[in-house]
């Protein structure tokens, strides 16, 4: 025997704490923690409601499992994006005004899903031969090669 009001109260508490957590943190990863708390509140509610007899098709636990899995999928993508943000901006501070400018010589946003420049490309069939060469150049002088290529493209 268990009184279902207790898990109900915990649900309300966790959701409230989660909301606060989302709003109180400026570190993107810590915001995720708040999100996880809200999700867990929902999960607990699902389990609570599902533990009542008569709930059809074992829906409570099954849905909980689903939500846990979805959360896992979400968190992988989220962390990947946060890493990209960190590499690009140098921080993961959500209160900072983000840098919305694009490069002045941004190539024509080509309208497809990439923004590669024609001048990056090499003729067909020469792929394998030049692959390593470019990478070595990148490594050797850091940023010189891309910059040169960019300026060349700008003048083109």
């Amino acid at each position: 025997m268990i009184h279902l009001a207790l898990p109900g109260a915990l649900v309300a508490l966790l959701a409230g704490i989660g909301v606060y957590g989302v709003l109180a943190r400026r570190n993107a990863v810590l915001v995720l923690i708040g999100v996880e708390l809200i999700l867990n509140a929902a999960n607990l509610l699902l389990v609570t409601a599902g533990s009542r007899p008569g709930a059809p098709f074992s829906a409570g636990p099954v849905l909980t499992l689903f939500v846990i899995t979805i959360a896992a999928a979400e968190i992988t993508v989220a962390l990947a994006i946060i890493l990209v943000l960190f590499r690009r901006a140098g921080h993961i501070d959500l209160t900072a005004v983000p840098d919305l400018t694009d490069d002045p010589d941004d190539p024509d946003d080509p309208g497809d899903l990439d923004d590669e420049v024609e001048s990056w490309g090499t003729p067909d069939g020469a792929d394998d031969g030049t692959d390593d060469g470019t990478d070595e150049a990148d490594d050797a002088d850091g940023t010189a090669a891309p910059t040169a290529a960019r300026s060349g493209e700008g003048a083109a």
Partner: protein
Amino acid sequence: MKGLTIDYATLLPALLPVAGLVLVLVADLFSPRGRRLPWGIAALATAGSAVATVPGLALGGGSTRQTFCLTPVGAAGGRGTLPTVEGLPQVCLWQADALGSTLQLAAAVSALVCIALAWPRARRRRPDGGTREPVEAVLLLAALAGTVVVAASRDVGTWLVALELATLPVIALVALSGRRSAAAGATQLLVTSLVSFALLVLGVALWFAATGSPFLTPDAALSSAGAFSAAGAPTNVVLPSVSSGLVALATVLVMAGVGFKLSLVPFHAWTPTAYAGSSVPVATFLATVSKVAALAALLVVLRAVAVLGTPALLAIAVLAALSMTLGNVMALRQDDVVRLLAWSTVAQAGWVVLPLVSISALGVGASATYLLTYVVATLVAFAVVAVTLRDRGTDGRTLAAYEGLWQRSPWRGGALVLALTSLAGLPPGVIGLVGKVTALRPVLAEGWVWLAVIAAVNAVIGVAVYLRWLRAVITEREASAAGEADGASQRAGRTVAAARRPVVVAGLALSAAVLVVVSVQPDLLLRLLG
């Protein structure tokens, strides 16, 4: 399992994108450098999905194409292995009626246009030696599959998973689309969607707690009023009738969770950033397929709730009014066409949910109709932007780039004019006007006069928004001609290369053709109203 029937033909609209997704991954194993092959597969799968929805379009009056049906367990002879629910009618995890099929078709066609707009250039090597196209194709197909499934889902499990399947890949697409501001856009979209999704799950859990049923059906909603406990369940659970308050909260939370995808106003802040940060095809996807997914998801819930009478949803009214007003006002100040379209999306989202203030069949149909008009017109506008970007580079994002478009290229200018007038609801774009009238009808029928007044004011401001762009399109270029010539000569080499993009133009042609067809035959859309 006993009692579970699967009809694969009915599932085709969802299965084809998934199959295409797998195929792309397999193809990538064998030909990792192929750039067009993944998109080709994606286009085929999407087109197939669109075709597969067609049998559902003609369904009339409540009939559905359904599968994954759970026969009532009581009728199955009480085998006792499953928890029995007496009195629950047959439920299916996939039920596509005419409305759902139309939304699925709209999603598939929009995705097809996005694929055309994103058609990659000839083989080029990246600095890292990899190609992104297969991943992008996979993500796009997954999002499409999620959209298609969510439109036909009737249970919270499928609904949640499908909605997430329609959202998560899009976030990755935004992050992948490569502009420098994409990271900012993706981050904002990401955090908004995570929080929204958490609230959504909370809403679903509340629904489950209130109704005791994992199905988003009218019967489940009715059971919240005590029918469930009376249905012969063990009596040690007492469900008081306060649970209808829970249904209300669940509905509102679901709406909030979906509202972020629709860009409704308090949840809209990601919209301009993400649109501007991503490439045009991804923005197009965000503006069309995502919106279809969101509204389809919302309608699934609202149609279940509608049976509780027509509750006055003040919350929806507030959201609609705020969205329309803020979206239009902000759009007035944008000089970047993509940002303008982003804010216009916000305003149009307000129009989309406007009819839902009366949760009824009329409101649902009107909302879907308006969404479709918006989707078609927005597709054309984005396609024109994409083609212009091919010609003119990043300049193509400014309003100034469209000056004299009518003279330079009458076809493109004409398509844009039709799209913009449709969005504004001005005469050449009849369909927009039809949509606005349709959307306002349930509002007036329910006597929401103040809301109708706000909507009317916003219709006027909206006209101003689109006229700003329209004016640029039809004015003649005089002063800027000289400067243009210089830029043109500089870009000549690239323009020549860019001019050979038949697939992108085909995407524009496809969307424009759809727009023209529905403009000439608005009853194709109005059929949804029943």
